[in-house]
């Protein structure tokens, strides 16, 4: 059996006396789209920050492709290819699309000067072929002139272009119009074909159910449900997200 891309075991996080994550374990398979669901305060954001290496877990073990990772920090996650796309802070609005795509990974000569023409050409190519985004005239446009959906798509195109292996999308659809959401979800399913794993963090169960292979439901810092799509339903997920473990038990007894 092939190893999971990322496996986390017994992760807990305490902020002072508050336990935000309590003994959470799960796997993200290669090329799998995992939905991370839960109400506000369920611990989703903390989990995202731990997986992307921004904050440390209090306890817990991490395995990447079967190899134990001593510490998940930014350097490690960058090397492994984890990329987190936060809701509205993925791009720098005052910079052009090209500069955003190549931010931190500029194509330069050996003195560190950027090859602008080359970068513009690649960026135009990325916009054309990696993800199709309506209404973008040129990679020289400022990101501030884009809509939320276009900016989101640019961020995803960037991650795919640089062959990231695990994409974590934090509430990507919350600021998007219906059409843009459709495009985004359609795009996530294609990432699987590329062998890119993704974690979709969302409130919207219908969006998650549409594209995710597996659903993980969090409630008060605990994982209360981890089911493949074919083993669950939107109704069951709703019960788990809204009413927590109690609701899930009642749903399974048929009394929800």
């Amino acid at each position, binding site marked *: 059996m092939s190893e999971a891309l990322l496996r986390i075991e017994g992760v807990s996080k305490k902020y002072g006396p508050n336990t935000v994550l309590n003994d959470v374990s799960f796997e993200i398979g290669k090329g799998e789209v995992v939905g991370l669901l839960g109400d506000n305060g369920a611990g989703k954001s903390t989990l995202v920050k731990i997986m992307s290496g921004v904050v440390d877990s209090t306890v817990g073990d991490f395995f990447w492709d079967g190899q134990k990772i001593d510490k998940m920090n930014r350097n490690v996650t960058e090397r492994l290819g984890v990329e987190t796309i936060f809701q509205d802070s993925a791009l720098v609005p005052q910079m052009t699309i090209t*500069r955003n795509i190549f931010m931190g990974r500029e194509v330069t000569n050996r003195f560190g000067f950027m090859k602008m023409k080359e970068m513009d050409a*690649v960026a135009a190519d990325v916009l054309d072929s990696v993800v*199709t985004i309506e209404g973008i005239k040129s990679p020289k446009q400022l990101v501030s002139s884009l809509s939320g959906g276009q900016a989101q798509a640019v961020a995803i195109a960037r991650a795919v272009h640089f062959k990231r292996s695990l994409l974590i999308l934090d509430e990507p659809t919350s600021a998007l119009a219906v059409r843009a959401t459709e495009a985004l979800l359609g795009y996530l399913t294609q990432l699987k074909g590329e062998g890119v794993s993704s974690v979709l963090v969302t409130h919207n169960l219908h969006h998650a159910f549409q594209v995710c292979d597996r659903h993980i439901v969090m409630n008060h810092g605990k994982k209360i449900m981890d089911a493949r799509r074919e083993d669950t339903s939107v109704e069951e997920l709703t019960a788990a997200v809204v009413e927590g473990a109690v609701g899930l038990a009642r749903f399974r007894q048929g009394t929800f």
Partner: protein
Amino acid sequence: MSDKIPGRRGPILEVPLPTEAISVRRKPAGEPASFFGRMNYNLQFIRGRGALEISIVLVVLLAGYVIASLISPTGFAFLNPNNLSGVISQSVPVLAILGLAAGILMIAGEFDLSLGANITLSAIVFIKTSEAAGLWLGIAAGIGTGVAVALVNGIIVVYTKIPSFIATLGMSFFWMGAGIFINGTSPAALTTSREGTMEYLFAHNFGSFRSQLVWLLIIGVLAWFFMHRHKLGNHIFAVGGNPAAAEAISIKSKQVKLMSFAIFGGLVGFAAILIAVRTSSIQPGGTATEDFTLFAIAAAVVGGTSLTGGRGSVIGIIVGAALIELIRNGLLLAKAPGFYITLFVGVTIVIAAIFNKLMEGKAR
């Protein structure tokens, strides 16, 4: 083909897109054929960055001055070589270099209000070292002091997360005191060491321009390539524009901010040398250099630098500095009373800030 493109680590995703919503393809970006069409096409990408608009204002003002000076060479002596060389090419470069210092730091999202105190301290160290150990050590010590002062400020700001406005305001009193501590209250003065190489390098009169203008050209070109074409400059824009996005892509924002403080310090140290050689003496704790703090920030703002970081341009800042000095010079030549100058500069700054705000809205 696509495999040869640098930066690409594998083939692109070429699966046809499934849903109807994304099947509408972007039209290829064809540039318009006519000259004006092409110009307008290119303009829409540089709009909202300030350099163009402010340059137009400068050119109009300059044209007005030239015409006025041609009509009345004695009444408004703008084109007089003494004015061009003695005033314009001495004052514009110093303010422009300081504006670049403040502007680069503002693009990174920080301020340093100890700029004036830094000038005083760096100039004193430059004067004392050159008098004692010669010009070259003096230059190194002057610039080194500027960098050290700014880095101390930067470390305080970056690691304590105190707003840089407050931290550097407090530190400015410290550095002012440090100047008096190492020099005493009497002015530090250049004596014999000013003659020869030093004067030629930093304040020589070449007829219609001076050494300072050459330095502005060199520093301006270097700054432009660094800020707009080098990856480190790109990181400064990224960190100032959206620190979270920069961090998410593994740009280390603390290091980038410290680097911006160091560049700021280097430029301030260099400007301090220009000021010291021009005036030959520096008064510790004096107000002459203190004024530069706000004028440098003003030059950056007039040149289209955002007060919240992430936006600005080297050309804009230099033009902004030139505009402020031209207005100052024009009022002086028109024999306006002294307070008019402060008054007009103040109005210019506020108008420029409003203009900036409007453009930020337009770019969004």
